[in-house]
């Protein structure tokens, strides 16, 4: 079983968080094993099994049970690191050297796509699809 945590925190402006990965549907379509999506009420459902608003203890339990997890730069990657469970983090404008954990597979397309100021509110950054790696890059790591 794979866990996906597809979304970073909603922005106060209502705009798409620039850290949200752009190609989830294509990625999910190429995965041939059960997927559980975790997140909160209001987020788009990407797979049949979407578990919303789970307490941290429940998320930790799921992490123990999963083969691997895939997420973005959100609290979930920190929770999984805290739990000692390796996963794949899909990076866009934020810097994995600052906000990531080397224990994970941190997939960043190129450092030139990082925003200059890593410490401003993300509301100031536009979402861009071209910042992210394509699904075929991720699938290579999923097979390992």
């Amino acid at each position, binding site marked *: 079983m794979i866990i996906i945590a597809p979304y970073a*925190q909603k922005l106060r402006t209502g705009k798409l968080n620039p850290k949200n990965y752009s190609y989830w549907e294509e990625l999910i379509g190429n995965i041939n094993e059960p997927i559980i999506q975790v997140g909160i009420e209001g987020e788009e459902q990407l797979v049949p099994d979407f578990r919303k608003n789970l307490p*941290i203890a429940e998320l930790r339990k799921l992490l123990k049970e999963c083969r691997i997890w895939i997420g973005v730069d*959100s*609290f*979930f*990657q*920190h*929770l999984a*690191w*805290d739990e000692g469970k390796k996963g794949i983090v899909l990076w866009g404008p934020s810097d994995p*050297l*600052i*906000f*990531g*954990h080397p224990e994970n597979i941190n997939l960043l397309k190129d450092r030139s796509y990082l925003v200059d*100021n*890593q*410490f*401003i509110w993300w509301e100031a950054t536009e979402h861009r699809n071209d910042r992210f790696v394509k699904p075929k890059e991720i699938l290579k790591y999923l097979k390992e």
Partner: protein
Amino acid sequence: MATRGRYFTTLPLVLNAIINQTRPVDKLVIFDDNDEPQDMRSQMIYQYFFQMLDIKGIAWEWLYADKKGQHHIHQRANTIGYEWVWRCDDDAIPEPNVLEELYSHVDEFVGAVGGSVLTPPYTPDTSAVTGLIDNIDNEPNIQWGVIKEEKQVEHLHCTFLYRAGVVDYNLGLSRVAHREETIFSYRLHQKDYKILVVPNAVTWHMKNPEGGIRSETKQELYEHDEQIFRNILRYRDKTIVVLNCGLGDHLVFSHVLPSIPNAEVFTCYPEVVPGKSIAEAIHLFGDIDPWNVYKKMDRWKWKDSLESAYRKLYL
């Protein structure tokens, strides 16, 4: 230098004294906090000052401040990018050797250096004064008297030279900014820097009942600031931790917490990092920005991990 209401009284004396220091300043910045600021380039005496600065090759800037109090002004100076800041008052006139003398005591372990700040005719004998924060209610300020030998203290008053960008001014204080320099210099002491008072560096404090950056009379403002100061003292043996940030940040910080001695934690997610509420931290300390790890990382031009940033902030 912060100024308010003293364009034509003591401010010109202070400017003249700064211009004529034996160790010239690298840059003079005047933060004008007047309710009705003027363009002083139209005033003859100021025209001469600006010309003297230019002839001496001293960079200068006249900035209009936000009218929030001198602690906001000093915080701007603190973060303007210089390694050392000499904070001057607009009614405290330094003798020509003051900056040179203060700077001569600087080394890698020093956080701030102050000299005598004499207010005629009051010059108490402060030779036995300790300058320790525990004695602040029981002794005069050591800088009020003639300092005869170098002494390590825990807090300073009025005007002094300090290492910039290490700690922040408390911006939670009211406009009167009561105790602001005591809190600031004590924070440098808490960061294990030496705070010194030194001889042969005399500033004459020509206390002027008119104007002044603290020309507010509301007693409740002083009481508000005094309460913050007392709370800071009450918690001085603790390492204050304020986590006004996201859940992920709390999870990362939880790996740092065991290394922090005697931590008193204020938290948004007590289920992850137990502690008191953020509202209580604001109530106690007025300003929680000094614990904002994101602002710190921005200021430090941080390239290392978030966990390392927490370690730098708290250890």
